[in-house]
């Protein structure tokens, strides 16, 4: 984890066991942590350190965080996470760190200039570019992240992570599929887009890509982007004449009783020689016959189809004149379950601080191997190319 100094705190007494305090000016919005460099003089004495953060202008307490010191080792960065402060950039803050044990032997590193206090610089420029290796895997050159969109993309990815469930992973898998296309993609159409989390990210990261997001109901559109337009479209209606380089639907077909017709209509919107991506719940053919799975799929998710097998999708793609370029599972249980459980234990500040780490762990879901059961992996995705 890279740490960037946000300012050194002078006149700070870094004596073991003594309270320390300081003042700094935040360099960014969404300040979410203060990190100090600490070391444990005597590991036999363990205590808890509490950081309190005050608005220097008003004296109001704006955040607090506590950390045990049992495993603090030499010069270890000790992070105090707290709920992000949206308008923190340029504001002065005062902090105090206290111990609950007078005999504490944890000291903060200091030199002649005082304690070096550090914080995560921003939401991480890395979040905006996190998916670049996948988006460019077939050798495409990505445009630089537009400065105007950098903060937006960072926030957008962080939001997808914070929302838990599958938001970030849907985006990651889509980026992986998109990046497998070795030729330029100028136009894209998304079916059943909802509020278009994935489409909005691609619109921001790839400003030259013209995206049409469609859904049977036009919903609230929280992501206005110049190259992202919305249109009402029922997948069961006959397709129009407009065709696209890349057509996708994410967890859409399972909600449609006549999914073959929906797939046919979706396929008709792809230009000859161009590409289609779908992701749907996974179930083997045998599992699809399981009444319990069928009932849960309907009652919990309103899925007419409890899941699709590789064979089902291979047939669908072949019937509609598509060559399958890539097929793999997604939402592997051994990845998503522990990450999800750990996320449940995190407070807002910890989630914020760990957003990049959580994203990296979730990216382990990008595997190529195939699962034998929906109990191993909950989703499946296909990328195909239309004949022509």
């Amino acid at each position, binding site marked *: 984890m890279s740490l960037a100094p946000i300012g050194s705190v002078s006149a700070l007494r870094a004596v073991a066991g003594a309270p320390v305090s300081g003042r700094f000016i935040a360099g960014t919005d969404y300040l979410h942590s203060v990190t100090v460099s600490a070391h444990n003089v005597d590991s036999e004495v363990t205590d808890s350190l509490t950081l309190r953060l005050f608005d220097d202008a008003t004296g109001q307490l704006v955040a607090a965080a506590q950390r045990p010191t049992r495993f603090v080792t030499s010069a270890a*960065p000790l992070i105090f996470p707290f709920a992000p402060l949206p308008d923190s950039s340029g504001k002065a803050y005062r902090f105090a760190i206290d111990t609950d044990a007078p005999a504490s032997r944890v000291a903060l590193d200091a030199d002649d200039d005082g304690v070096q206090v550090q914080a995560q610089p921003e939401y991480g420029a890395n979040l905006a570019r996190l998916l670049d290796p996948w988006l460019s895997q077939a050798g495409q050159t990505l445009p630089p992240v537009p400065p105007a969109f950098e903060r937006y993309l960072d926030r957008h990815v962080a939001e997808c992570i914070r929302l838990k469930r599958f938001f970030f992973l849907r985006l990651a898998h889509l980026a992986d599929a998109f990046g497998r296309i070795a030729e330029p993609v100028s136009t894209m159409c998304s079916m059943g887009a909802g509020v278009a989390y994935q489409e909005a990210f691609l619109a921001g990261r790839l400003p030259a890509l013209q995206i049409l997001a469609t859904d049977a109901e036009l919903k609230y559109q929280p992501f206005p982007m110049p190259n992202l337009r919305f249109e009402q479209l029922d997948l069961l209606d006959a397709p129009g004449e407009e065709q696209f380089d890349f057509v996708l639907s994410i967890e859409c077909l399972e909600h449609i009783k006549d999914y073959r017709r929906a797939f046919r209509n979706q396929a008709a919107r792809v230009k000859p020689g161009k590409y289609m991506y779908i992701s749907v719940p996974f179930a083997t053919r045998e599992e699809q016959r399981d009444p319990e799975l069928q009932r849960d799929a309907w009652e919990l998710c309103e899925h007419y189809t409890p899941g699709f097998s590789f064979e089902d999708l291979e047939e669908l793609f*072949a019937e509609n004149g598509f060559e399958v370029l890539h097929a793999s599972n997604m939402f592997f249980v051994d990845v998503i379950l522990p990450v999800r*459980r750990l996320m449940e234990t995190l407070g807002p500040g910890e989630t914020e601080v760990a957003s*990049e780490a959580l*994203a990296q762990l979730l990216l382990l879901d990008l*595997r190529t*191997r195939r699962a034998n059961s929906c109990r191993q992996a909950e989703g499946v995705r296909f990328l195909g190319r239309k004949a022509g």
Partner: protein
Amino acid sequence: MAHNARMLDAQVRADLEAGKYRFVDAGCGSGGSLDHCERRFNRRPGLGLDWYGADLDIAREHGFAVAHCDLKTIVLPHRSVDFVSMMDFLEHLPDVAATHRALEAFGRAARDFLFIRHPSFEDIDYLAPLGLKLAWTDWEAHPNMMRIEDYHRLFAALGWTDYIIIPDLPIRDSSHGAILPIDAPRDTEAYDEALHGPKRAITFDRVLHGKFDIFVRLNPSLPDEEWRAIATIQGWRSLWQSPGARKIRHDLHDRETRSSRFPPATQTDVHALTDALLWRAVAHAEAPTPATRDALAELVKACVMARPDGLLHFVHLLDAFNHATGARSVLAVGADAARTAAFLAARCPSIQVDLAPDPARGGYDFVAAIPSRSAALNWDTLLAAVKPGGWLYVAVSHDQDATRDVLDSAVCQLPYDSFLTANIGGALIAAGLDGLVAAIGEPASPEALADLVRLALLDLAPARGDSMAGPIGARYLIRRQRIGTEAA
């Protein structure tokens, strides 16, 4: 129209015809044999061909040119490459007739020579009366167990008379890991005392060989000197490759077996996870008492908190130890190794752990060394500390070039006969775990501790994303030769 996977892609065919590739590797799998041939024959690029898409994905991720096709029916452009390699491939074909077809096709495609590596099926009848077998001689995936006399007949039928067959992998006694008790289950990859029970200790009255390297010279104009340089196994006896010289692509072969032993992701007991990792060692150990369980959990927690890579070192070292069947004495060097060794000793009280070599022990069954970036180790001492038949485990980060060079130099001069390497700490998992632990601090519950271990276990089966980002280090598990086995 859907793509016909049996046919070679038109672009690939065009590239072959245009002379883009120096050789074709039939049955390239995930790219290991492509890599081997590029280095061995110093000709590149090669084109790998295989049927299994998942393996090809891995090969592509490692930068190899590969294509999907049915090798039983493939037709390649005439004289389009210097040579065709078939490493551990022909035994997977249905029968000798299919082999004849394949050799004919590849013989037409190659200008200079064919290179075949074939496991030995010569000694089935010799070993059976001794109650033994070679591991690969009853694999379901080997329907075509051709012997050398079959090759002689095939080559004669094809009109090939200029060929060299060189036996390799000498096996002198039953201590070799590929020698199994004859009643070991079919498809067993290597001897495992915990699974297969004891096997007879026998020194064979002749040297068996595990494999043959076969070279067929197709181009009579190929200079003799060049042909001699090609048709040799000199310099290729050892599997050991300097980690500094190339990217490591091998992983411990029993990964899938091991992964299937892990409890499902719904399991939130850290002890179930670590016992699954150490299944050989704990198979005969008593269940831990509540006090021991608490102590073990504390040790795991200490590994978690030993940032940045303490937890990854923990799972990799336990995994390697589990591979080293029957080790009872352990020397652990380096803080990460010492922490994990303390866990081993607590879980399996019969295991003796030292943190510095004790001359009175007369060597160790398992020596684990995880050097820190700041502290160099005395490799000569460590290598000498491994008993004959014992194991050396080393984990180094990719920025420890000097350490690797010293290790290379030392190991290459010693009688070691088994080398297993794997990447350690895929970039995503290493950064992800470290960042997560930094953010949450000490795991607050046993369930959180188990979930962190569960995630670290994913590093034993690297994900695609990790291979794109690259690993942070490598591990080596090296077995010292057992010298002077018991007589029959």
